[in-house]
C-alpha cells in the first residue's frame, strides 16, 4: 500500500566524534588509564627517535668542526706487520702529494715523565713521551687549556706540553712548573684540552723534534704522520698514502681516518636506538591490548545503550563506527600526550647534553599514525562485537 521510499539512516562524522567524546567523558578514569599505555609507547618512540636525531646532528656538527679530511698514517707493529716506525722519508714524501695541505709527524721518545726526580722508575702512570711537529695542534684541531703551544724556538729547547690526561695524572693543573723527563727537569709551557681525534696523545708529554734529538737521543723517526688533505680529494689521498709513506713495504702502513671512529660509535648507538624503538613498540602493543580490553568490557556494559540506539534507527555499521570511534579517540589522545611527552624528554635530555633539540616531523606524525593504527586495530573486534549484538537481547538486559 505505501509506495513511499524509505530514507536511509545516516550518521554524520561530526556526530561520531561527539558521541565518542561523550562516551569517554562519562568514563573518565577508565579512559585515562587505558590511554596511558599508548602514551608511554609513543613517548618512548618519539623520545628515542628525537634523541638519536639530536645526537646525530651533534655528530655532524662535531665532524664539521673537526673536519673529515684528517688522515692518520701509522707504522704497523708486530710480526709481518712492521717495526712500529715509518721510513725516514715518509713525512717529506707525503707532503709532496698534491692535495695534501698539512702534515704533522709524531715519534715516540724512549723516555718517561715523572712529577719529581724522586719517583721510582716504574711509576710511569702509563704515560709516554712523544716528539711532535709544531703543526700537530692545528692538524688535530686541538686546543690549549693553559699556557701555550710550541713555537719554533721552544720546540728545540727542553720544554714540554702535557696532554690532558698526562697533566691530570702528574697532578699538574697549570703551566709554569717543571717535570722530571728522562734525566732532566723540563719546564711545562702548556697543558692541552682533550684531543677528540687522537685520545692517545692525551696520555703523552709532548716535546719538539729539535729538543727530542738534542736532549733525549731520539732518532726522530716518526711512528705516525697526521695528514690534512684537500677535503675534495681525501679518499684519493688515502688511496696513495701507504705506498708513498713506505714504497717498499706498503702493507706495513696503516692508513685510517680518525673521524671514522666517531661515526662508528654513532652506528653503535643506532643499535641501541633500534632496541629502544622495539621496546616502545612493545609498550604500544600492550597499550593497544589495553584499549581492546577496555572496549570489550565497555561493549558488555553498554548493551542497553546499543539496543536503544538500534531502536532509534542505528544500523549495525553505525554501532560499529561508534565503538571504533571511541577506541580511535582514546588512542589519539594517548598519541598526542605521548608525542608531547616524548618531545619533552628529548628537550630535557638534549639541553642537559647541550644539543640542539631535534624532533622530526617523521617522529611526530609517525607517532600519531602508529597510535591511529593501534587504535583501529584495538577497536575493531569490540566494534564488530557490539554491532553483531541482537537489539532485543541488548534491550532485555538493561
Amino acid at each position, binding site marked *: 500500500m505505501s509506495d513511499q521510499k524509505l530514507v536511509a*539512516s545516516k550518521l554524520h562524522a561530526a556526530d561520531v566524534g561527539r558521541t565518542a567524546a561523550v562516551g569517554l567523558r562519562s568514563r573518565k578514569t577508565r579512559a585515562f588509564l587505558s590511554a596511558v599505555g599508548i602514551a608511554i609507547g609513543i613517548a618512548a618512540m618519539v623520545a628515542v627517535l628525537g634523541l638519536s636525531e639530536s645526537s646525530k646532528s651533534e655528530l655532524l656538527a662535531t665532524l664539521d668542526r673537526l673536519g673529515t679530511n684528517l688522515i692518520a698514517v701509522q707504522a704497523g707493529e708486530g710480526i709481518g706487520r712492521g717495526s712500529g716506525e715509518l721510513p725516514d722519508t715518509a713525512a717529506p714524501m707525503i707532503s709532496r702529494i698534491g692535495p695534501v695541505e698539512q702534515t704533522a709527524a709524531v715519534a715516540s721518545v724512549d723516555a718517561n715523565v715523572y712529577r719529581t726526580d724522586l719517583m721510582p722508575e716504574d711509576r710511569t702512570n702509563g704515560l709516554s713521551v712523544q716528539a711532535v711537529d709544531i703543526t700537530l695542534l692545528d692538524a688535530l684541531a686541538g686546543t690549549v687549556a693553559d699556557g701555550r703551544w710550541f713555537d719554533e724556538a721552544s720546540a728545540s729547547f727542553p720544554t714540554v706540553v702535557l696532554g690532558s690526561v698526562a697533566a691530570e695524572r702528574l697532578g699538574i693543573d697549570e703551566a709554569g712548573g717543571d717535570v722530571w723527563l728522562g734525566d732532566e727537569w723540563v719546564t711545562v709551557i702548556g697543558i692541552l684540552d682533550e684531543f677528540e681525534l687522537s685520545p692517545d696523545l692525551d696520555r703523552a708529554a709532548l716535546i719538539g723534534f729539535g729538543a727530542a734529538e738534542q736532549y733525549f737521543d731520539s732518532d726522530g723517526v716518526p711512528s705516525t704522520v697526521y695528514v690534512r688533505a684537500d677535503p675534495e680529494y681525501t679518499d684519493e689521498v688515502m688511496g696513495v698514502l701507504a705506498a708513498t709513506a713506505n714504497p717498499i713495504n706498503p702493507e706495513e702502513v696503516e692508513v685510517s681516518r680518525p673521524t671514522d671512529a666517531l661515526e662508528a660509535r654513532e652506528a653503535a648507538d643506532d643499535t641501541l636506538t633500534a632496541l629502544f624503538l622495539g621496546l616502545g613498540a612493545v609498550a604500544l602493543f600492550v597499550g593497544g591490548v589495553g584499549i581492546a580490553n577496555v572496549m570489550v568490557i565497555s561493549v558488555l556494559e553498554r548493551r542497553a545503550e546499543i539496543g*536503544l540506539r538500534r531502536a*532509534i534507527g*542505528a544500523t*549495525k555499521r553505525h554501532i560499529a563506527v561508534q565503538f571504533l570511534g571511541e577506541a580511535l579517540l582514546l588512542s589519539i589522545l594517548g598519541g598526542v600526550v605521548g608525542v608531547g611527552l616524548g618531545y619533552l624528554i628529548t628537550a630535557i635530555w638534549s639541553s642537559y647534553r647541550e644539543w640542539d633539540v631535534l624532533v622530526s616531523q617523521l617522529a611526530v606524525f609517525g607517532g600519531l599514525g602508529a597510535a591511529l593504527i593501534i587504535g583501529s586495530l584495538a577497536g575493531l573486534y569490540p566494534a564488530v562485537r557490539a554491532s553483531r549484538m541482537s537489539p532485543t537481547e541488548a534491550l532485555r538486559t538493561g
Partner: protein
Amino acid sequence: MSASRTVLRLEDVVKVYDSTPPVRAVDGISFTVEEGELLGVVGPSGSGKSTLLHVMGTLDRASSGLVEVVGYDVSKLSDRKLSSLRSRHIGFVFQQFHLLSGYTALDNVADGLLYTGLPLDERRFHAAVALDRVGMGHRLDHLATKLSGGERQRVAVARAIIGSPEIVLADEPTGNLDTATGDSVMALLRELVDMGTTVIVITHDREIADGLPRTIAIRDGKIERETVAAGAAI
C-alpha cells in the same frame, strides 16, 4: 475502503526462540491496528508480550507469518532498511527508560533524530519542542541521571515522538513508576493518540488496561481474548 489507514498488520505471526528447548513465544497471532488507535496488550509474565512488541517494532524478525508496518512487509526489508524504518516511523518507550547517562535531557531527546541525518541544531530545536510537549521544557539541561523516574519517562516519551513517528510502542511504560506518575504518563500517551499517533501499550496494570479503548489479552503466545470498550470508536 475505510478512510482510516492500517498502520500495522499481523497475520499468523509466529516467533520461535531457538533455545533448548525451543520456545514459541508468539504462536500464531493476527490483528490489525488503524491509524490513531490506542491499543493495550495485556497478559501474564512470560506470555510473549515483549517478544510481540519487538516483532512489531522490527527489532526482531518473526519466524513465520506476515508483519506489515506502515505498508512495508518487513520480511522483504534488509537490516539496514529496517533501521531506516525505525528511525522515521516507529518510536519506542521502555520500562527502564534507557536514557543515556552522560547526556542532558535535551540531548537524550535530540538523539532520537541522530540517525536521520538532521544537523545537530535542528535536532536540538525539535528536542526542545518535544520536551515542551511532554511538560519537561524546564529541565532541558538537566543530566538524565539527575531526573526523577516520572521525569525520565517523560523524556523517553519525548525521544520516542521527536521524529513524529506513525507508531509508538511502549513496553510497560508505567512499570517503574508510582500510580500517580504512571497515570500522568498514560495521559501523555493519550494526548499523542489525540494528535493522530498510533500507540500500542503493554501493561500489567488492570486499571490502566480497563481504561483503554481496545485491549488484546495474550497467554502462551496466543490471543486469549480481545476487548473493545463500549462506545470506543473503532
